[in-house]
């Protein structure tokens, strides 16, 4: 995995957190629903690993969403 890929994934996840609240109140859950709908397993795993090891660049809702990613160890 290149740093550019992780950089893009972090940016995308933060962007989702900024935008995703179209209805429900639980922002992190909205982020997770969106990611589960559109992201591949490997993209989710890459970010989940980053969240475990560092996670400092993720916005709170993005970070909290990671535990709700489907099919990710």
């Amino acid at each position: 995995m290149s740093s550019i890929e992780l950089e893009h994934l972090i940016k995308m996840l933060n962007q989702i957190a900024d935008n995703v609240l179209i209805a429900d109140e639980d922002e992190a859950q909205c982020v997770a629903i969106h990611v589960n709908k559109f992201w591949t397993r490997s993209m989710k795993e890459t970010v989940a690993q980053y969240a475990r090891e560092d996670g400092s660049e993720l916005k709170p809702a993005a970070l909290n969403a990671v535990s709700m990613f489907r099919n990710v160890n």
Partner: protein
Amino acid sequence: MLKTYDPKNAAGINSTIDPEKDYGTPAVRIDDERSTIFVGLTIDAQQVSVPRGTSIMRAAALININVPKLCATDSIQAFGSCRLCLVEIEGRKGFSASCTTTVEEGLVVRTQTDQIAVLRRNVMELYISDHPLDCLTCAANGDCELQDVAGEVGLREVRYGFEGENHLNVEKDTSHSYFTFDPGKCIVCSRCVRACEEVQGTYALTVDGRGFESKIVAGQNEKFMGSECVACGACVQACPTASLMENSVIDQGLPEHSVVTTCAYCGVGCSFKAELKGDQLVRMVPFKGGKANHGHSCVKGRFAFAYATHSDRVTSPMIRNSIDDPWRQVGWNEAVTFAATRIRDIQKQYGRNSVGGITSSRCTNEETYLVQKLVRAAFGNNNVDTCARVCHSPTGYGLKTTLGESAGTQTFDSVEKADVIMVIGANPTDAHPVFAAQMKQRLLRGAKLIVADPRRIDLVRSPHVESDYHLNLLPGTNVALLNAMAHVIVSEGLEDGEFVANRCEQPAFERWRKFISEPRNSPDAMAAVTGIVANEIAAAARLFATAKNAAIYYGLGVTEHSQGSTAVMCIANLAMLTGNIGREGVGVNPLRGQNNVQGSCDMGSFPHELPGYRHVSIDSVRKPFEEHWGVTIDNEPGLRIPNMFDAAISGNFKGLYCQGEDIAQSDPDTQHVEEALRNLECLIVQDIFFNETAKFAHVFLPGASFLEKDGTFTNAERRISRVRKVMAPLGGKADWEATVALANALGYEMNYESPSEIMDEIAELTPTFKGVSFELLEEKGSIQWPCNDEAPDGTPIMHVDEFVRGDGFFAVTEYVATDEKVTKRYPLLLTTGRILSQYNVGAQTRRTENIQWHVEDVLEIHPHDAQDRGVNDGDLVQVSSRVGQTALRAEITDRVQPGVVYTTFHHPESGANVITTDNSDWATNCPEYKVTAVQVGRAAQRSNWQSKRALFSEQQILHVNEAES
């Protein structure tokens, strides 16, 4: 297929119309209240009942009495100048022109008497006295209405002789590449002038002078090429003589047969008669029976077809081990075996998910379906995407979320009933010209127009059409503007409360109303963000909300933003809020870029959805596909195109099958894309030309043009139309056959005899397509999906009684500014678009005479910004963004506002996408092509990237030439 008029079927009169026949004058418009009131009359002792307002000429033609005519044709209003169509009406003095005289209850009309015969013969005699008698060597010989009518009236002599003053030797205008104007053969019937006004709405032609001096002139008495003519060809089609004639017919003679097919350019999806001699295409004539275009066309569809047989076509499969090697021409078997072996080796080494495919929005539904099937079934993953990723993927997301279906809600004809039209982020006169012509006619009849665009597009001001409001917002602020409009409507109580209460989800609406009512969404608050004064926003909002019927048309200027999906939801919110959905004249209308971008999305080209927009994670959705295809389908979404590039750079994605798509030119941040493509170990490109992407490929499979295959395209109004093969594939296989060969080489068996079988499989597996078949398309001409048991004839207007999702959903649409902001270093905003004569990456149109209208991409820059930088018109300027640099010629124009620059991406060497960035829509990853912070300055030479590209291209062309030698 001559059909006779059946009075029993009078109410449905349009359904009995023979599109091959000229009824002389048009039908009464559907927005004319007279169209539903029928009157009866007698013509030559036959009874006929037609809508009030119909001409006697048309009423007669409907019962197959064809009154001679020259100045009348049913694409334009009656004019009454040629006096050939005179008829007798009982109780009236003299003779009436049947084209300009409308029917009345109880009229008794005679179309042929001895007196009429003499009159008509005398009129023809005058015409012919000033017309060359070179019929046998004339280009229109056999296709000339003047010749036909002379025969019909029995003209036997011209008593005036031919020696008097005449127009026979007037010089021809041969300035135009596609047609010739020969004034010597002109009868000044003004059909061309009226077609230019009433069909196209450009007003480029006029009749200059009076009496004997009358002549047709283009522009201000200019050559056609120098005038404002947009080369739509409506005048050529309307001309009854050889005065305006296609050069292809002058050169080759008249075609001897024709096949109805669908244009392969934009998302309007015009129906054309491809007119041929043998398998040589002579001309394309828009088909009057086409429900998207009603016999109209643009310069691309009608004239720009020479690319299909251009010498640049690659017609043999080629392979190579590395992109540094020369190509080797091989047979199909060897090519697909080579490709399949490489793909399987990659999967063995890097895993099942290390390969993927890109389906083409230029290919047919059947072909697109097969590519996604190949990826899901033979590659065994969901790594399939399509170019809609980079254009209308936010439409899919936004409309699915709010309305429940990823598609526009209307027909194009719906615009005929719109009272207020809002065009946002679209430039229809350039990108969707045939629909723009229809829209302009509606505007000419009084509809109001709101344009929201950072540029002054032609619709803002063109002859006889002017927008009521031009909201020239700053790029990237659509959501701010649309929220502010909604704020005005809610705060002033202009919403359609009844519609919202009956049709929309209430808790969501209440939450949205609270959000939108907040002062931060007001026009005052958003004025600074959008750059539009608050009063303008409010006035436009009021105009929109108070219209009886208001319709929104939008394009990539909405979707290609970091908030593209949010803006689409804003548009859906506005339509629901004002009750403008579920009937004619209203709706949410995405103007689709490529001919089959709607279809490619419908066919399951997105990595998270199977055909019919159903998510791969749902077991009941996957099951029928798994059973039919005999495989297990992954329940996790696959990679989208930008994710594929990132994964390729990471080394996890190694193989790509790319059909009919030039990602190296069309996708943003070119240098990033090139790096990704260089990392692939097997890139299979299937295309009609050796495009930019092919330069990075290992396998090249020759593509087939739309003339070389059967299938269907689906246009922006969900209209499925047939594409019909008129010549054999130059490369030996239609695109669907190539995919079948590749699948079989991969060990996944595909057996289809024809695209019709593929459509049957699509219909079996896709609920919204259940009723679709080639047989039904033959019968109906075209069908708008959903087409199933509930809607066996298709669905012109969606969401009529309820939304597809049940209740409409108001999504909260918070404005979040893009990260791409102007800085001291990059103080201007670049936005991109396309122009009329070129199409997308230009691979097709650059290989036609259309090139003369646009030899290079230029940078539009406002005079103030140019002056600040010492830039003169025509100077080479360097355009730099945080990701790259390129050099273009500057065009100084106040069409763009200060602070904004604009360019197109039709030429690969321009490198417009070297500058565009990796920013993308938050929901779909659709790139933010429309907002890039840049600096512009004078340049002495082309950029480094341009020089490197030129060298690389040259090398790659050599590699191709080596294969051929």
